[in-house]
Every structure is written in C-alpha cells, then in structure tokens.
C-alpha cells in the first residue's frame, strides 16, 4: 500500500516536472516584462488596446540597436513595448516612418522596459528602433510586443 502511494506521488511529481518543462519552453522573461508594462493599456474597462499574440525576440549587447520593420495602418492607434530579460538593463524604443522621421506620439523608458505610441498618418512600413542603452557586457534577451485599437 505504501509502495503504491509512493509511486503515485512519484508519477504525479514527474508529471508536474514534465508539465513545468513544457510551460518553461514558452516563458520569456523579456516578454513577461513587456506585458507587465503593457497591462495598464489593456484594461477592458477603458477602451483597451488589442494585444497581438505575435511578437519579436532576440539578443542585444549594451549600446547595440536593431530595427524591426512592420506594416501599420492609418487611423489606428498603436503601442509598442520592449522588455529585457535582464532587470539591470536600460532599454529604449522609438518608431520611425519609411523616410526615417521620428513619429512617436509619446514614449517612456523605465529601466528594463520601455514603450512608444504612434498613430500613423499613412498606411505602410514603419521602423521600430530598439536599443539597450545600458546593460551588462554580455548579450541580454529582449522581446517586443504591440497592441492596437
């Protein structure tokens, strides 16, 4: 009886471990940080932005930047957020049109998270410029998410 009980616990423990492994595969600390920064804009009671499920990710060293090209549509209102997987990093995010003009309506930077809002004046390709302003010497993971309304 005792043996049976132990094996049930062992199987349960293993199942939890395997399950946790599966969940872990989808966890990205940078994305979690970005979602944390986005939450106030996703409040259902306040004409919320619709958060897209698709997102970008990669790695950057301190001082490095990257550009993400993305199609935006006129009359929509967009927020982009970046989150770093390193809590000591300081990141920034800004939006440029196809001619390279800064088009942020507003933006903020709070250490490992930053956000920028844009209401495109024309439909077409825009560039999201992300940068690790300060951070550890090695590369840090980043994730960019966006929402629209």
């Amino acid at each position: 009886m005792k043996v049976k009980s132990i094996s049930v616990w062992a199987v349960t423990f293993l199942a939890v471990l395997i399950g946790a492994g599966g969940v872990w595969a989808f966890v990205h600390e940078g994305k979690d940080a970005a979602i944390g920064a986005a939450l106030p804009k996703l409040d259902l009671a306040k004409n919320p932005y619709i958060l897209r499920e698709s997102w970008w990710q990669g790695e950057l060293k301190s001082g490095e930047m990257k550009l993400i090209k993305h199609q935006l549509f006129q009359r929509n209102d967009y927020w982009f957020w970046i989150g770093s997987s390193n809590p000591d990093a300081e990141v920034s995010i800004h939006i440029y049109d196809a001619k390279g003009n800064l088009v942020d309506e507003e933006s903020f930077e709070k250490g490992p998270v930053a956000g920028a809002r844009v209401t495109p004046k024309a439909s077409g390709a825009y560039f999201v410029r992300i940068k690790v302003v300060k951070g550890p010497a090695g590369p840090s993971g980043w994730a960019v998410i966006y929402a629209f309304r």
Partner: protein
Amino acid sequence: MRWLRKSGYLSAGVFFLVILWSGYSSFSAFGEDAPKKINLSQLKVELVQDVVIPIPQEIFASLDKLGQQSWRSQISGKKVKLDTNRARTALLFGMVVADGFIAVQAEDRDEVKRVGRQVLELAGALGVKSAVNEHALSIIEGANAGDWSEVKHELDRTQETVIRTMEEMRDQDFATLVSIGGWLGGTRTLANLMSADYEEEGAELLHQPDLLADIIRRYQEMSSKSRPGPLFKQVDETLVSLGSLMKKGKDGKINKDSVVMIQQLTVGVTDAVYGK
C-alpha cells in the same frame, strides 16, 4: 510596538524607494534622446528578420473609424473541403480565421460558431488539434455569449498557436502558409468592400508594398514541395501581381482600378484554395 516601529521604517523605506524609482523613471525618460531623423539607407543597423503579418482585425479596426461597413455582405459561408494536400489545408486555415474576423465584425453568432468548428476540423487535418481545441471552444463560447472582444483575441491566439506549434514540429513552411492565408483573406475583404463602395481613405489601407515584398520573399524561400501543383502556382502569380497594385500612384492614392484588380486577384485565389 516594536513591530509598529519596524513597519513604520519599512513604509518609509518603501516610500523612499518609490520616490527614487519615479525620479529615476522620469530621468531616464529623457536619458536617451531619440534622433529626430535616421538615415535608413545608410544606417548600419541589423534589421530583425522575423516578419509579423498583421491580422485582418487591424485593417477592420481602421475601416470602422471611417463609418459603417457592410460586414454582413462579406460573410462567404464557404464550406471547407479537405483533401490530402496539407499545404492547401494550412493556407485554408489562415483564410478561415480571416472569415472568423469578418463574422465577428458582423456580430453573426452562427457564422462565428461555424468558423470555430471549421478551425477544429482544419487543425485536426494539420495534426495540431490538441493545441487548438481550447481556443476553438472559447471562440464558440464567446460567440454564444456575444463577447466579441474575447472572440477576436481567441482568433488571434488560435492562429498564433497553430503557427508556433507547426514551427515546433519543424513545419515552418506550413506556418508561413497559415499567415499568408490570413493576410489574403483580410486583403480580399478590404478590396471587396472598397471595390463595391470606393473610398480613397479606405483604399489607402491597401498600401502594403513592403509587407507584400516580405511575404513574397518568405513564400519563394519555401521548399517547392510545400507549394505543389497549379494551385500554388496561382498563389505565387497572385502575390507577384499584387506587388505593383499595392503601391501608391503619382497622385499618392490607390485608385479604384487597382482596387478592382486586387479584388479580382484575391477573390480568384481564395476561390481556388477553397475549391469553388
């Protein structure tokens, strides 16, 4: 008493940290001045290669701001006919999800539920049913409750789950086809609406030459085994033909002739994929 004093110190400490944090935040908001202009052609910055294709809802949200649209007229009610061609099934999956977004715009419960069932059927054929099951049920439940916001989220989650699951199964090409199917479905709907009732500002949403170039690049990078036969030749030709039509003319507009041609091309390819 000691506890009270301790918690008092604690509160003061937390208060001090909050002040420090907000000061730091405000400071860092001005810490890195973004250049007002960047030279995109000379900038030696790596471009992120991943392309996120907008969902039809992004176009529909913009169209709604122009006024009432006849969404109900865009419900095709097309039935899915499955065959052994998984590449076609992947393309069809994206198109069915796009149909779901249209049904949500029309707030048509029965159509949304029908789409939910079709999503399950197609997911089964793609071998990803277990990953999608929960989302499909949420779509049907959301439609029953008239919770359109939730249904929109679930449609996006459904498509993303299928794409991620197929990528994990090393079916990258089929994941690409799901995205392209969704984009074609949304573009067809926009072109349908604008060719029936042309509005310059609505037609402007078809200005997507860079996105289309990325879509064509991804499509043509796919293995030829993933785009077999005349159906996929038609998809290829349609995408290439759309290239010149989705650019603005000298007057800065997408004119009605271009809209009508986009409509004909996208309806043609949709009918072919569904197996008219």
